[in-house]
């Protein structure tokens, strides 16, 4: 028994694992295979980002009446059209917007909205109705569909320690990779290697033990594939030294090295701004805007922007009227931000939110978020949305 070797390396690292030698080494892709491979990058803003102070309706007086101390001054707003503009913390995105690489979809939500963080996040990640409980995520169900582009175990990567519900299907799940190098280095446990060697995906049983070994083996092979494919690529763009900046830099590395992954998922926390919103939200928005601007410019430079679509969402928006603590409480409809090199409708996709016709103090949703998902599934991931969502949605025309 190789105790020394096994026990020496007891540090637990993110992601993980070990590669069976019998698995075929990854064959380098021909250059032509690398173009035209469409990627979707999802950025989740956790906590309920205040959409009204993100894309600011500075041209609407009601906004200033309802938010006497936390509204963004007209002079400070980075104006995009006569009514709406960017929070100044997002000024890095102005250039992206001007280039036609950004689309803003206002008033996205769903019927009978839930104001609890975890329930609403559940709804967004599973794409359920508000009174329905699904145990699989919408991306997970995309993986389950076993379509041509999504059958690989690394078809969906979350750049994080752990995997979100959105990425979990009934049969297939995405893979969580915070750092591909660390993931690869921690794969070399002799004991685990032995275990994996004795099994191959083909002769595993259908029971839970077979499932556990299958997950282990696929993680090994994915770890090897991801590391071998991406290790030599040096990201050229400059990224801010924030966690989100690093995560998007990793995504850039994966995309540019030709990883055959269709979906990337990252999240940024800290948007639940009940108190002293202005400072807190500005801090988070700056992290977001700077990282996204760097990412989009980097992909433009490397020629991958046309093959990439970025979607940003949050589990809900916040109430139109501010609260007594210079913050905002949980609300409903919110904006979704889309980025890409080939948008058919850049700029504002629809009208600014209607601040005069509210539902009990909250914005009324105009677009169901599943119509946004449906668009991504139909037009970007090449799969009929009705197969993945609980019913068929008509979709939109931003791409």
């Amino acid at each position, binding site marked *: 028994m190789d105790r020394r070797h096994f026990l020496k390396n007891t540090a*637990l690292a993110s992601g993980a694992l070990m590669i069976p030698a019998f698995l075929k080494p990854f064959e380098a892709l021909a250059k032509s295979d690398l173009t035209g491979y469409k990627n979707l990058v999802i950025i989740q803003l*956790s906590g309920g980002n205040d959409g009204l102070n993100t894309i600011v309706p500075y041209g609407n007086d009601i906004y200033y009446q309802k938010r006497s101390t936390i509204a963004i001054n007209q002079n400070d707003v980075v104006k995009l059209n006569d009514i709406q503009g960017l929070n100044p913390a997002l000024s890095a995105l102005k250039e992206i917007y001007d280039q036609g690489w950004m689309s803003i979809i206002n008033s996205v939500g769903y019927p009978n909205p839930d104001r609890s*963080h975890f329930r609403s996040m559940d709804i967004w990640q599973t794409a359920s109705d508000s009174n329905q409980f699904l145990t699989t995520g919408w991306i997970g169900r995309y993986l389950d569909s076993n379509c041509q582009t999504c059958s690989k175990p690394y078809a969906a990567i979350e750049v994080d320690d752990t995997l979100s519900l959105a990425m979990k299907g009934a049969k297939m799940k995405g893979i969580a990779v915070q750092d591909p190098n660390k993931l690869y280095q921690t794969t070399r446990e002799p004991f685990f290697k032995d275990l994996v060697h004795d099994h191959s995906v083909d002769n595993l049983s259908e029971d*839970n*033990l077979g499932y556990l070994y299958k997950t282990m083996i696929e993680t090994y092979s994915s770890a090897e594939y991801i590391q071998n494919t991406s290790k030599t690529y040096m990201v050229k763009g400059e990224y801010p030294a924030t*966690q989100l900046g690093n995560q998007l830099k990793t995504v850039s590395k994966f995309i540019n090295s030709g990883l055959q992954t269709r979906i990337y998922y990252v999240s940024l926390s800290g948007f639940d701004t009940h108190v002293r919103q202005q400072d807190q939200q500005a*801090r988070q928005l700056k992290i977001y805007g700077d990282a996204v601007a760097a990412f989009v410019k980097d992909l433009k430079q490397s020629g991958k922007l046309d093959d990439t679509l970025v979607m940003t969402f949050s589990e809900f928006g916040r109430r139109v009227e501010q609260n007594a603590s210079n913050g905002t409480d949980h609300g409903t409809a919110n904006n979704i931000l889309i980025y890409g090199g080939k948008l058919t409708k850049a700029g504002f996709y629809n009208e600014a939110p209607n601040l005069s016709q509210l539902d009990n103090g909250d914005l009324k949703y105009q677009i169901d978020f599943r119509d946004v998902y449906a668009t991504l599934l139909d037009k970007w991931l090449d799969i009929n949305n009705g197969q993945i969502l609980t019913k068929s949605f008509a979709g939109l025309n931003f791409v």
Partner: protein
Amino acid sequence: MDNLKQIKHLYSRAGFGLRFEDMQSFANLSVKDAVKNLLDAVDDPVAAIATDTDYTPAMKADVAARKMFMQQQRQEEKDLNIAWMDKMMNTHAVLQEKMTLFWHNHFACRSNKAFFAQQLNNIHRANALGSFRTMLFQVAEAPAMLQFLNNQQNVKNHPNENFAREVMELFTIGRGTYTENDIKESARAFTGYGFNKDGEFLVRRLVHDDGQKTFMGKTGNFTGEDILNMLLERKETAHFISNKLYKYLVNEVPDAVHVNAMADVFYDADYEIKPLLEYIFTAGWFYNDKNSGNMIKSPVEFLVGLSRQFYITYDKPEILLQFQKVLGQVLFYPPNVAGWPGGRNWIDSSSLMYRLKIPSTLLDGGLIDFSGKADPEDEAYLATVRNQAQFVSTRVQSNANWDKVLNGIPKDASNAAIAGFMLEPKLNNVILNRVNGAGDTKAMMIELVSTPEYQLC
């Protein structure tokens, strides 16, 4: 299955596994006596949170006070979580805790008041092996649940249907057995059911709708209690609970004949839980090969079982929360009112890796360098904390009692016998070859609990 294997299987399902020291004394016990022991053992309530602190003034005060409140709230949640983990890791009443965990998931609930959460947890514990009827009535009056399912907002002329809907869909009778109109009418029966500022249940008469309701074909001035009684009268409720319990204790794929038999026992016993459990644990089919070594342990079962097996103590028990987080099950934080889906949902590439690495980390003083995602409910707190990207690299500081573990192993036990005792599924050749050639028992045991096989019970 020989007797020891049966006892071992029984304890892996009715408890959190068997220790080596138990092996000698339990081997000679009949299944019947072992079941009796399990059913008779009781433990005290969890008492981590002494008082129901009223934070309303703090919430209205300035930023500093609010921040302090949130910190205190989080500390209480941590204390409660650790107190329950500690209970599970050390109790002699393992079946009671195992069933408390079942009811915790069945009556899934979140509360931002740890005192209320503890109260509900103790309701589950006190009735874990008692009467489902009593438990249901007590849960329906618990502030944590009334608040979670918005029944404070359920008032005459403006009914909020959330509570009534979940009581039927998830707690008693299950989908497909009632109509939307049954929900509307029963919601009226629960109007005014709430709690006062001292956390005491009360029916606010002024907002209670005492008019006629028509529920499941009957008409009358029904109260909430009447509705619960009518739901318990329906045998589908006994079947719904039996089916769920079968999936928790026996097999993820229910066997219709066995579940029907369970429902008969449960219904005839007027929802007493003990007779039902006794029936399951003494049924021949419970010990069939196809019902053993094939269930994926929940993260909590995994951590508790490991800690019990090796008598692990934690200098910094907060680490247990971090483990729960990365493995996907934080006590008192179910993903939604339907609870944790369980089974293969526990396993993905990263959670499996953590499960394979955590044992050697705990048993051999390792480092961890992961943090896991924040729960969405932590966002308000995170928003106030400036430096939120805390990368955790911590020494686990856990202590296994190796002397006790090694002394518990029978002197004549072969390595293969030790492995067979520790792992429920049949051993494959790799494992057998390794244990047969192993010199150091301690190292061998660490490897055995770092396998896919160890994830099963």
